[in-house]
């Protein structure tokens, strides 16, 4: 009786079709993937180890790109004031940016989705409380929140502890301002979906509430969440870089694109442009690529989000 339609192959889906026909999408996804791989495999890819202070050779400080070091090392992108190879520093900095960026997006997403589900499904007091906290949070700029959290932790912990916990604190600080978006979007979707008949059918069947939320509502909320997460990633990376630039992000011993830019700032007018400009270019490339992927994903997924 039913039409004999074969199960669809993902290759035939509209999403793949859109992707293949959009040069912007292909390029930005490719760039993002390359940067991701390079950053993740920093220890293997980078020619020199920049974490270990012993490796850096102060004699080789501030060499321009393409220069040769004293011991015959080849510095493709030059060196920084401490003699660290720029290329390696940038690759490790990339890793740091991606680590902090992805972690804070993941944390924000988990917290935001959970609160959004609770808020949307149960309504009432829980909804009111969560949304008011969200409103308050939104009135603070992300940087300000991060600065506040950083300042508080600095006073609470001693220097050593603070340095060891700097990165987790940073991730927490960045996600603290981002969770609100996820919560709001998920809450909106849940408000719409919970009245739909398939949810009612599950209730009539007697499915337990946590199961309804987890297996019926959550999967339907993930589409828009994915789009937000991608765009947020670019923002998180930029936020980390800004904080590192301001000196309140990653500790100075760890390389970060932001701190490299800061270090290089002082030497801009001495003509040592590469210390600042090259990390900045990489940062721009990364956030641009991720942003473009997010934009394309939002447009490509949009008609699929509205049911016929």
């Amino acid at each position, binding site marked *: *009786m039913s039409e004999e339609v074969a199960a669809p192959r993902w290759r035939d889906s509209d999403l793949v079709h859109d992707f293949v026909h959009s040069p912007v999408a292909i390029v930005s996804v490719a760039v993002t993937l390359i940067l991701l791989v390079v950053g993740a495999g920093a220890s293997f890819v980078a020619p020199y180890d920049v974490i270990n202070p012993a490796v850096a050779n102060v004699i080789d400080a501030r060499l321009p790109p393409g220069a040769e070091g004293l011991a015959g090392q080849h510095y493709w992108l030059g060196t920084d004031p401490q003699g660290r190879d720029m290329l390696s520093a940038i690759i490790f900095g990339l890793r740091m940016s991606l680590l902090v960026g992805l972690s804070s997006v993941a944390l924000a997403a988990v917290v935001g989705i959970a609160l959004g589900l609770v808020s949307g499904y149960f309504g009432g007091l829980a909804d009111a409380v969560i949304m008011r906290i969200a409103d308050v949070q939104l009135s603070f700029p992300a940087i300000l929140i991060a600065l506040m959290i950083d300042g508080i932790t600095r006073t609470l912990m001693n220097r050593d502890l603070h340095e060891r916990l700097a990165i987790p604190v940073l991730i927490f600080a960045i996600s603290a301002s981002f969770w609100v978006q996820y919560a709001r979007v998920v809450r909106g979707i849940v408000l719409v979906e919970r009245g739909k008949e398939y949810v009612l059918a599950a209730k009539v069947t007697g499915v337990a509430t946590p199961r309804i939320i987890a297996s019926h509502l959550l999967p339907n909320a993930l589409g828009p969440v994915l789009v937000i997460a991608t765009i947020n990633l670019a923002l998180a990376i930029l936020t980390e870089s800004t904080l590192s630039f301001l000196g309140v992000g990653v500790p100075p011993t760890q390389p970060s694109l932001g701190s490299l830019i800061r270090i290089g700032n002082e030497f801009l007018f001495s003509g040592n442009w590469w210390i600042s400009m090259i990390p900045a270019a990489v940062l721009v490339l990364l956030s641009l690529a991720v942003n473009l992927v997010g934009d394309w994903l939002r447009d490509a997924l949009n008609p699929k989000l509205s049911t016929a």
Partner: protein
Amino acid sequence: MTSLLSVEHLRVEIPTRRGTLLAVDDLSFDVAEGEVLGMVGETGAGKSLTGNAIIGLLDPPARIAAGRIGLRGRRIDDLPAEAMRHLRGKEIGAVFQDPLTSLNPLLTVGRHLTQTILTHLDMSPSQARARALKMLTEVGIPAARERLDSYPHQLSGGMRQRVVLALAFACDPTLVVADEPTTALDVSVQAQVIELLKRMCREHGTAVLLITHDMGVIADTADRIAVMYAGRLVEIGPTRSVLNAASHPYTQGLMASIPSMRRRGVALAQIEGSMPRLDAMPAGCAFHPRCPVKVERCTRERPDLAPAGASDVACWLSSTTATEDQVRHGG
């Protein structure tokens, strides 16, 4: 009877990324002055697209790919947007399904009417307002003078649809295209709106193209019925002929599958399968995969509309020129 609206070999296409879909295929029919033509068909048959094509409001990417639409002999399908805008409202009125979204929530009922009237008719604002009041009274809205200043959300569904009817008839059009005008209304209100539509047509001499999937409404209102299937016209003829003595197997199957209060308890006749998707149209007659009386020719050649009794039918077996036995509806 002179032909008011003539549609000739209309083709409406929808280009998609997987190829072009043919939603209306070689459609031809006429509407005479003052007559009510009911266009019936199920979802996907192309009747709404036909209505939209006539009014010139096809949603892109759908477009008229071929054919000709003429109003009183004058060609209207290729008019520029500005000229079409003048035509709409003045010569052709439109009534859509959902009265809530047909009216602008920010405009009062009076504004809706006077705006339309002033756009198309040469009058002063106070004359327009007087005419608006007259229209509201004519459609049976109580306390019409006060209602001129009401907003759509302050009216009930039935009242809103009456306002929509007033708008459609405000400039005395020669043709009204009504797309599912009663589907969103309650049964008792449906009856009122249908009566109203019939009365307005009689009094203004307006022709109506009534598009709906509700056979009961058509039975009550239409002079002639056109049955659409998969973008094609399969049968067209006087109402009672089509309802009681349909010639096309699809029409017969359709009529037999409608539950009626008089015929109870018997299993409803059902047509197996479903309407073909636009991207999987069978060769020959579009209905042949589901047809109980098909022959070999039906799978190869698409039948043209040919006379069969009082109606025109697109079926190799039903036209009077066929040599096979005619299939009659059993009532």
